[in-house]
C-alpha cells in the first residue's frame, strides 16, 4: 500500500479528481494549505500599505492506493495538475504500514 500526497494548484483539483476516478480510485482527502516554493509570493496593496505575501494558497490531496497502481496514480496526478509554469506543485509517495476501515474493521488492502 502506498500513500500518495500531492500539493497542487487549487484550480487543478477537479481535473486531478477526475483522473484518479478513472483509475478506479475511490476517496480522496483534500486540504487547503499555504506555502511557497520557487513560485515565491506576490504583493498586495491596500491604499498606501504594501504587503509581500510569501505564502500562496495551494491544495493538498492525500490518497491511499494499492502498491501496484501507485505509479499510475502518480502519473495521473502529474498529468492532470501540470500547466508547465512554476508553482505546479509536488507529489510525494510513501509506504503505509497499516490501514483500517472503521465501520467494518477490514484491514489493509480491503480497507482501501
Amino acid at each position: 500500500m502506498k500513500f500518495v500526497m500531492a500539493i497542487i494548484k487549487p484550480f487543478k483539483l477537479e481535473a486531478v479528481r477526475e483522473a484518479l476516478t478513472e483509475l478506479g480510485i475511490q476517496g480522496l482527502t483534500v486540504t487547503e494549505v499555504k506555502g511557497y516554493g520557487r513560485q515565491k509570493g506576490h504583493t498586495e496593496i491596500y491604499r498606501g500599505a504594501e504587503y509581500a505575501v510569501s505564502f500562496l494558497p495551494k491544495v493538498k490531496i492525500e490518497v491511499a492506493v494499492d502498491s501496484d497502481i501507485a505509479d499510475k496514480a502518480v502519473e495521473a496526478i502529474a498529468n492532470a495538475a501540470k500547466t508547465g509554469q512554476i508553482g505546479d506543485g509536488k507529489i510525494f509517495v510513501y509506504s503505509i504500514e497499516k490501514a483500517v476501515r472503521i465501520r467494518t474493521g477490514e484491514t489493509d488492502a480491503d480497507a482501501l
Partner: protein
Amino acid sequence: MRFPSIFAKRASGAGALALAAFTALPALAQEAAEGAAEAAAEAAPVMDKGDVAWMMTATLLVLFMTMPGLALFYGGLVRAKNALSVLMQCTMIAAVMMVVWVLWGYSFAFGGGTSPFWGGFGKLFLSGVTADSTAATFTDGVVIPEYVFICFQMTFAVITPALIVGAFAERIKFSAVVLFTILWGTFVYFPIAHMVWDGSGYLFNLGALDFAGGTVVHINAGIAALVGCIMVGKRNGYGKEILAPHSMTLTMVGAAILWVGWFGFNAGSNLEATGGAALAMINTFTATAGAIIGWSVVETLHRGKASMLGAVSGLVAGLVAVTPACGTVGPVGAIVLGAIASVVCYFFVAVVKNKFGYDDTLDVFGIHGVGGIVGALGTGIFTAPWLGGTGGDDFSIASQLWVQFVAVLVTIIWCGVVSAILFKVVDAIVGLRPTPEAETQGLDLTSHGEAAYHYS
C-alpha cells in the same frame, strides 16, 4: 438671495427664535428686516406631511450609515481577529450617543442659549419638548416636529464619534472608546455643532457654508482621528507584519450602504422635501461618481491597477467632500469637486501617511479629515454661479473662501486641542491600549469573548 446651505433656522424650537436666527445672518439682514413686519402678521406655522415623512425617512437613512454601513465598511478593513471589536464599537457608540444626546447633547448644541459656543442648559433631558413642539425649516412659516429634528440631529451625533474609531482600530480598549465618546461628544461635537448650525453660533454668523456637516462631522472626526492614532500609537507589528484587511467584500457592502444612507444625510439636511433636497440628491450622486473614477484613475497611473478598496475609498472621499457643498454647488461642479477630493485624499493615504509614519489604520484623517477640508474649501469655490453653483451675482470666491478657511481652522484648532486633552484624560482613567498579548490574540476574544468566524 438666499443660501439654502445655511441652517439659519435649524436650531430654533419656536417661530420667534427662528426669526432671531434668521436676522443673525448679515447677508440676509435687510431682507429679514423687511420680512419682520409681514412675519408678525403671518398665520400660524404650517406643517407639511410630506416634509415630515421625508425627514423621518432621512433620519433612518443616516442611522443606516452607522448601523450597519460604517460598521461593515470598517469591519472588513481590519483583520479577522478584530472584526467584531469594530462592529461592537460602532454599536455601542450609537447607543451611548443616543442616550447622551437626549440627556444633555441636544441642549448643549441646540438648547436655545445665545452663546456663540454652546447651546446652554435650556433643554437638558429634552425639557419642554413635546409632540407639539416644532422646529423651523428653511421656508418661512414651515415647520417640522421638534422630535424629528432631534432624531435627525441625533443620528449625526452618532456617526461622528463612530468614524473616529477607525484611526486606532485593532489596538484600543473598549472602555476607552466608550469614555472617549462621551467626553468628545460633550466637549467637541456639541459645541462645534452649535457653532456651525445654530443661529447664534460663531461660525454660522461668519457666513460659513456647511450644508450637511463637512466641518462638524468630517473635519471634526478626521482631526480627532489624527490626534488619536498618534496618541494611542502604532499597532504592534506595524511595518513588519501583514496587517491586510480581512474582507474586501464586507467593506464594499458597507461602503455601498454608506452611499445610500448619505442621501438622508445630505438631502435630509434640507429639512424639507423640496428642490433644495433634490439638488443635494443629484450632487450626492455626481460627486461620488466623479470621486470613484478619480481615485481609480490615479491609482491606475500610480500603481498600474485599479483596486476595489481604491474605488470605495474614492466613493467615501467624494461623499465627504460633497457634504458641505451639496446644497449650493451644481451637479457638474460636484463631479469636479469629487474628483479633486479623491486625488488629494489618495496623495494623503498613499504618500503622506507613509512619509510621516502615523498609523491611521482605516485612514479616517486621510479621507474624512482631508476630504472634509477639500470639500469645505471647494464649497467656497464651486458655489460661484459661473461654476454652476447657486451663489448670487454678488458671490465672491475670495471672500467666501476666506470664511470657509476660518471655519476649517477654528474646527481644527478646537477639535485638535480638546481631543488631545481628552485622550490624556481617558488614558489616565482607564488606559488607552490593551496589553500587547491581548492585541496579538485579537480584540474579539480578549475584549468581547467571542470570535467573528468559526470554520465548522
